[in-house]
């Protein structure tokens, strides 16, 4: 059964140096507060996993917290590059970053296999692309039809962290709006944390709502506004202006470092 605790206590308990950590949320419900708490606690040498690294991993990679990034689309959606990621990949600043990249379909299937505790997932894809030579996939033959398919390895991160709108006092969670791969990430993770906008007495079923029972979650922590500058559907709006501004903030190493000091490291822990 999930334990309700503070964000700082949950992160301290769950995230260790060297861990593989997946913070999921497909544009929507990105767990920014949790990611920044990981940075404030000084974690290093992380293997960061996320389909769309987004600004949160630009920040985490930019301060040198990661040794490896596993991803499928590393851009600032609609704006352009993630400059800190590019600087790490192109110039090794502030530390060298190993990458393992997939397609979205590949990553989604890897999470689904991880959630099912299967070793791999089968799909069409990768064959005929240069990605096949640069990542971890294997061709396999369908035993029933003989079709050549690709096997992608399951993802089972040491820690999965997501953000949701609501939890009840038993630690059951409900999220709604764009569901991304959050349920798969929690079920695939060896340990898990869900941060929520609010804790309520009773979860009322929402149209399109995704329910995750507390008995598959380790910790639930209240983090109101914890998805900003991403958003929590029906509670907050995506701050598209911030995503545009990030392009300028992140382009320059010193400006980025100053911004992180002011807004993350000197900020009050949640």
């Amino acid at each position, binding site marked *: 059964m999930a334990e309700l605790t503070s964000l700082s206590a949950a992160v301290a308990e769950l995230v260790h140096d060297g861990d593989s950590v997946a913070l999921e949320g497909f*544009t929507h419900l990105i767990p920014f507060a949790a990611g920044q708490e990981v940075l404030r606690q000084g974690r290093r040498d992380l293997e960061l996993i996320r389909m769309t690294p987004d600004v949160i991993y630009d920040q985490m990679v930019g301060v040198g917290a990661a040794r490896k990034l596993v991803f*499928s689309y590393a851009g600032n*959606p609609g704006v352009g*590059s993630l400059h800190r990621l590019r600087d790490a990949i192109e110039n090794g600043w502030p530390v060298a970053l190993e990458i393992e990249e997939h*397609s979205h*379909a590949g990553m989604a299937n890897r999470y*689904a296999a991880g959630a099912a505790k299967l070793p791999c997932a089968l799909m069409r894809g990768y064959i005929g*692309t240069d990605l096949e030579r640069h990542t971890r996939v294997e061709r396999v033959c369908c035993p029933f039809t003989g079709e050549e398919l690709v096997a992608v390895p399951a993802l089972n991160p040491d820690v999965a962290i997501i953000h949701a709108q609501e939890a009840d006092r038993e630690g059951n969670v409900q999220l709604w709006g764009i569901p991304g791969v959050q349920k798969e990430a929690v079920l695939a993770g060896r340990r898990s944390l869900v941060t929520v906008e609010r804790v309520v007495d009773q979860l009322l079923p929402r149209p399109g709502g995704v329910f995750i029972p507390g008995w598959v979650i380790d910790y639930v922590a209240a983090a109101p506004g914890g998805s900003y500058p991403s958003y929590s559907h029906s509670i907050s709006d*995506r701050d*598209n202006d911030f995503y545009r501004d990030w392009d300028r903030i992140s382009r320059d190493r010193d400006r980025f470092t100053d911004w992180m000091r002011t807004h993350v490291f000197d900020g009050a822990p949640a």
Partner: protein
Amino acid sequence: MTVISPPTAAEIQTVVAARALTGKHSCFIGVGPPSTAALLARRVHNPGLVLVYESGTFGAKPQRIPLSIGDGELAETADFVVAVPEMFNYWIGAGRIQVAFLGAAQVDRHANLNSTVIGDYEAPRTRLPGAGGAPEIATGCPEVVVIVPHSPRTLVPRLDFLTTGSNHITKVITDLGVLEPAPTTGELMLTQLHPDATVQEAVEATGWKVEVADELAATQVPTDEELAALRELVARG
């Protein structure tokens, strides 16, 4: 009466892309110009077009051009929303979305796409965002339309990285014209030219010795209705 100023090359490109959705059932779209074209199509050419965004939103009816493929308005106005594994396995991979709009940093004469790196993979000159959904979209959707600027930097003789390969690519729409696979060789050839563009300009802006169709089609000048709808959409921001 308002006088409508002549269209820019970029506006013509968007209008031509929107027209390509006439009579289609569903279109998969990413951010940027493809999204603008698909929204224009719903306003002018095909009001019933089902827009499918990578975030899992089906039948979204946004009033503004979304900045990201996961903007809240897409989920609020969608007929239904699915998780990412379902999106790629049940809908895209299974071929249920009719047309896809894709962009790319590089396109070669066989209509293969690069959105991964410029330069060497291990030591890239420019690291691009990467594959995203493109590879499985391009093989899953029966018709794939690529929307790119017409430049020798984009239309290249050799890709630095093959991110996406497909034999479903039906058109490459640029700001100068349209390239389509030649019936015999499958190589991209210039089949249509936009107003104000010249054959010489289009040939010189293509990074390989591009074949020109014997009967080169002329793009119909955007109508006042198309231009007014496009400009109104863009002005909403």
